[in-house]
């Protein structure tokens, strides 16, 4: 059974593409045949984060328009088996993604035996974001511990619950909360919303907490999904989230302040 997962947030810049790349890579590492699709038509970026920007020949819109086959457009990852990337086009035509076109691509991926189809949503609640979530079975809502991000996540949840295909047929999209750029120090200091606060406000189950980490920027600089950085806290937190997504019961890590030594405590 194939599953369509949308990675969405409403707000921009919270880490959707970083998370999509990490999640798709993590699922593939676990042996699942996985495709990750960039829905941000006009502002393609998943290719960069995945480090395949120089291998893009055809894109999502080419496939929808019949200018290329899906096989021609899918980029096979060289690091992880079973991982394929479908880049967005750089056309400025926002209506390039038709509902029928998106559906036909998703159906073809399902028929090809893909276990997971990860849809990297653009920011906003315009057509691209709507197309990314419309066919979803599950949604990973990426949220920063910050008021505007939490509010936008709540609005996206509303759209998932009322306007997705699942909602239209009376089903629900399974929702997961992924908190990114989390800083336990700032939570302790009282100037950042805690994970508990966010869970209480959005009332959806927590999939993972990704700590603020320099390795995320380093990973994007070098076009390596951060989940492949097995030594980094962010990479480990994404790996944990994947295990949880696949049904394992793993305790959350990196949510508390690392113990500081005496001198560090004294001199801050």
């Amino acid at each position, binding site marked *: 059974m194939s599953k369509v997962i949308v990675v969405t947030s409403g707000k921009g810049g919270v880490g959707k593409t970083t998370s999509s790349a990490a999640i798709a890579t993590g699922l593939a590492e676990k042996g699942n045949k996985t495709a990750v699709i960039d829905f941000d038509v006009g502002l393609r970026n998943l290719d960069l984060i995945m480090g395949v920007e120089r291998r893009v020949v055809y894109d999502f819109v080419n496939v929808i328009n019949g200018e290329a086959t899906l096989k021609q457009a899918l980029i096979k990852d060289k690091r992880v088996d079973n991982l394929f990337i479908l880049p967005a086009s750089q056309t400025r035509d926002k209506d390039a993604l038709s509902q029928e076109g998106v559906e036909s691509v998703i159906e073809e991926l399902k028929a090809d035996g893909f276990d997971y189809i990860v849809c990297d949503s653009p920011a906003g*609640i315009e057509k691209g974001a709507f197309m990314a979530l419309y066919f979803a079975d599950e949604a990973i809502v990426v949220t920063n511990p*910050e*008021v505007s991000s*939490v*509010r936008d996540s*709540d*609005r*996206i*949840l*509303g*759209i*998932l*619950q*009322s*306007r997705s295909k699942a909602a239209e047929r009376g089903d629900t999209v399974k929702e997961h909360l992924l908190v990114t750029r989390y800083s336990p120090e700032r*939570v302790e*200091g*009282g*100037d*950042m*919303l*805690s994970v508990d*606060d966010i869970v*209480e*406000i959005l009332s959806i189950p927590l999939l993972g907490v990704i700590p603020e980490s320099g390795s995320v920027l380093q990973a994007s600089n070098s076009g390596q999904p951060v989940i492949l950085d097995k030594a980094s806290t962010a990479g480990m937190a994404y790996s944990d989230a994947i295990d949880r997504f696949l049904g394992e019961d793993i305790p959350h890590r990196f949510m508390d302040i690392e113990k500081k030594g005496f001198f560090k*405590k*004294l*001199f*801050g």
Partner: protein
Amino acid sequence: MGLFDLFRQDRKKNTAKAAKERLQILIAHEHAMGAGGHKGPDYLPKLREEIIAVIRKYVSVSDNDVNFQVEKGDDFDMLELNITLPDSK
């Protein structure tokens, strides 16, 4: 917190708490109004209008003084109505 923090003038207050409270109020309001995809019951806007009209027969309140919230429970939904009455002198 380091030793020197104790001597800093502007020890910040807990703004995260304020953030949480503001979000809770805002999101409850947006749900009740059906913002985003959130749909309250269809009759809600009309109900709100009529209730405000009834209240105004007796006291003068502004739209902002009447706060409607629908909370979804497992077994039931709850309509919470908060009316801030003007100071009676």
